[in-house]
């Protein structure tokens, strides 16, 4: 039986037992601190009209405020705030608070149209009924809260980490014992300007409320990051939002931002534990990031950005305090153990090792969020760009003309030098696609740069047009939108770099041309 059916049935029986004409339940709404009519018999309009009563006002409001039963021998505007009750002609009323474990859940009341007083026996009987109603309501609310928390967990956790050429990413989220979700989170996203943001944070508190605040703070950080400002400024803006809209919340967070090739990181911390930095051949350290105050604590604090150099193969690890805090030791000892457990290996390996060493088989007392990233190690080759490489580089400018795509193909094939047949065909196709997009969407002359470095060919097409680059998944009947998808499928890596306002964009790809192992053509 659901809660509304149950309440209806209880109210109907109370009317019979107490010889009453009306019976109603109002529930306490914590957000507004008001009573809201939830079920009624003989007074159905109270529920239909969504009657609300502030705590402390009128008959039900006083019962809720004092948490004491009230018997009324006169019902009019001086004793009852809700006009529905006196309009109805109710002469006598009796109400009791719905309490559970010292907490107010609402008010249960009955009324008589005849001027016959409710007795102390009636009051005791109503209180017994109220205890049972309160228990049923609470059980139901727990079930709703647990279901909502489960849904929130699925909606609030990142679906997957972004695929970022030149970087590897890994993340873990482990809620504390017996909980579906808490206030910890991690986030990683790229922006149209090419920036990669990685974030971990922790909303103080537990359960559904912390999770909801977490969702809003996470969303605010993303929105402010989109404005293009530095992590410190994004934290300042988010702090103002938390101060104003999330009264009483306290949030620690660390934000790190970098652009390709992800060597220079800008980091700002609001009361959060320092990220761990590891690199090949040097000792692992805690990042020198001076934290500002947590969000929501002091208001409008000016915040600072720290800068961090990450060499090729370097690793950055962000985490929340559940990873290092133990009841029986100082936090410094936990940080020490974390530093010992982190090395510049593949992020998935590091995540596993860190969880193994710091959590092991213990059930964590607090939520843990963990985010690990690593620049591609130098042996595997950092993502090269035509401009940066020391290899033979050829550059030519072409007009925004349909004949240019053919000229661009010829130029690229010549600049790349001898290639196996499969690589030849693939390079020709991909250059044609980028040149076509530059002519159609850019509408301005475009620059083609081609570099051959051992078994790698790197191509960049830059134009100063304002056209957006986007990846489509066209239907079979759609004549357009296939070019970039072909590049994405056939290139070993590719990307778009926004060169800044009115400077246009560069679309690049890298092709491994060794041995003709490409699936495309042969």
């Amino acid at each position, binding site marked *: 039986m659901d809660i509304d059916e149950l309440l209806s049935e209880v109210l109907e029986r109370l009317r019979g037992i107490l010889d009453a004409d009306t019976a109603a339940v109002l529930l306490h709404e914590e957000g507004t601190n008001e009573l809201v009519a939830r079920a009624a018999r003989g007074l159905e309009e109270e529920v239909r009209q969504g009657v609300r009563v502030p705590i402390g006002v009128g008959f039900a409001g006083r019962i809720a405020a004092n948490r004491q039963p009230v018997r009324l021998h006169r019902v009019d505007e001086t004793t009852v705030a809700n006009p529905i009750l006196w309009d109805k002609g109710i002469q006598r009323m009796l109400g009791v608070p719905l309490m559970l474990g010292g907490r107010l859940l609402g008010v249960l009341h009955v009324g008589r149209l005849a001027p016959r007083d409710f007795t102390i026996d009636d009051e005791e009987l109503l209180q017994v009924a109220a205890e049972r109603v309160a228990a049923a309501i609470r059980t139901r609310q727990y079930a709703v809260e647990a279901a909502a928390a489960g849904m929130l967990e699925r909606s609030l956790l990142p679906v997957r980490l972004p695929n970022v050429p030149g970087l590897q990413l890994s993340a873990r989220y482990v809620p504390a014992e017996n909980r579906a979700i808490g206030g910890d989170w991690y986030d990683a996203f790229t922006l149209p300007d090419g920036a990669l943001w990685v974030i971990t944070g922790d909303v103080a508190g537990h359960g559904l409320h912390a999770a909801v605040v977490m969702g809003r703070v996470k969303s605010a950080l993303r929105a402010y990051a989109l404005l293009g400002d530095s992590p410190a400024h994004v934290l300042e803006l988010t702090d103002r939002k938390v101060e104003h809209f999330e009264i009483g919340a306290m949030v620690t967070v660390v934000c790190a931002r970098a652009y390709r090739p992800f060597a220079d990181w800008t980091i700002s911390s609001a009361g959060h534990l320092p990220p761990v930095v590891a690199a090949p051949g040097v000792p692992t350290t805690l990042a020198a990031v001076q934290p500002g105050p947590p969000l929501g604590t002091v208001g409008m604090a000016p915040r600072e950005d720290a800068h961090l150099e990450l060499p090729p193969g370097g690793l950055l690890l962000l985490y929340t305090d559940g990873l290092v805090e133990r009841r029986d030791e100082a936090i410094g000892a936990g940080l020490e153990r974390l530093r010992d457990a982190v090395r510049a290996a593949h992020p998935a390996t590091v995540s596993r090792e860190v969880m193994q060493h710091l959590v092991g088989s213990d059930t964590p007392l607090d939520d843990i969020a963990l985010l690990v990233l690593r620049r591609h190690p130098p042996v595997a080759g950092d993502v090269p760009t035509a401009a940066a490489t020391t290899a033979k580089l050829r550059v030519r400018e072409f007009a925004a003309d349909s004949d240019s795509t053919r000229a661009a193909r010829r130029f690229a094939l010549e600049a790349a030098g001898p290639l196996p047949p499969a690589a030849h065909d693939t390079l020709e*196709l991909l250059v*044609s*696609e980028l040149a076509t997009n530059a*002519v159609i969407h850019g509408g301005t002359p475009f620059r083609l740069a081609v570099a051959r470095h051992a078994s790698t060919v790197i191509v960049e097409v830059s134009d100063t047009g304002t056209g957006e680059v986007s990846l489509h998944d066209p239907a079979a009947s759609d*004549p*357009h939108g296939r070019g970039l998808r072909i590049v994405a499928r056939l290139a070993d890596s590719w990307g778009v770099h926004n060169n800044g306002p009115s400077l246009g964009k560069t679309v690049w790809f890298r092709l491994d041309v060794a041995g003709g192992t490409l699936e495309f*053509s042969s």
Partner: protein
Amino acid sequence: MTAPPEQPPAAMLRLSGDIDLATADDVVTRGANLLTHSAPGVPLIVDLGGVTFLDSSGLSALVRLRRTAEAQGSQVLLRDVPERVAALLELSGLAEYFPTAN
């Protein structure tokens, strides 16, 4: 690029050279023209034997021709498809939409 001057029993569009941004519109114009002058239901056969290069602009031309053909109850069949063009059709998920005629 060549023209299909001879009068085949089915509508036949014979393509050669590079099919890209510079030539794709012309392919569509010629193919649509053939369809217009064919009896309803007569398929348009596109012979790709002489094609040296084809990219997404070329795919776009084929898709547009297929739409035109369908609008008049006909279809587009491909003939003599070079291996690299077949691979591109496959990669783009279009292979099954372009049956071959031989």
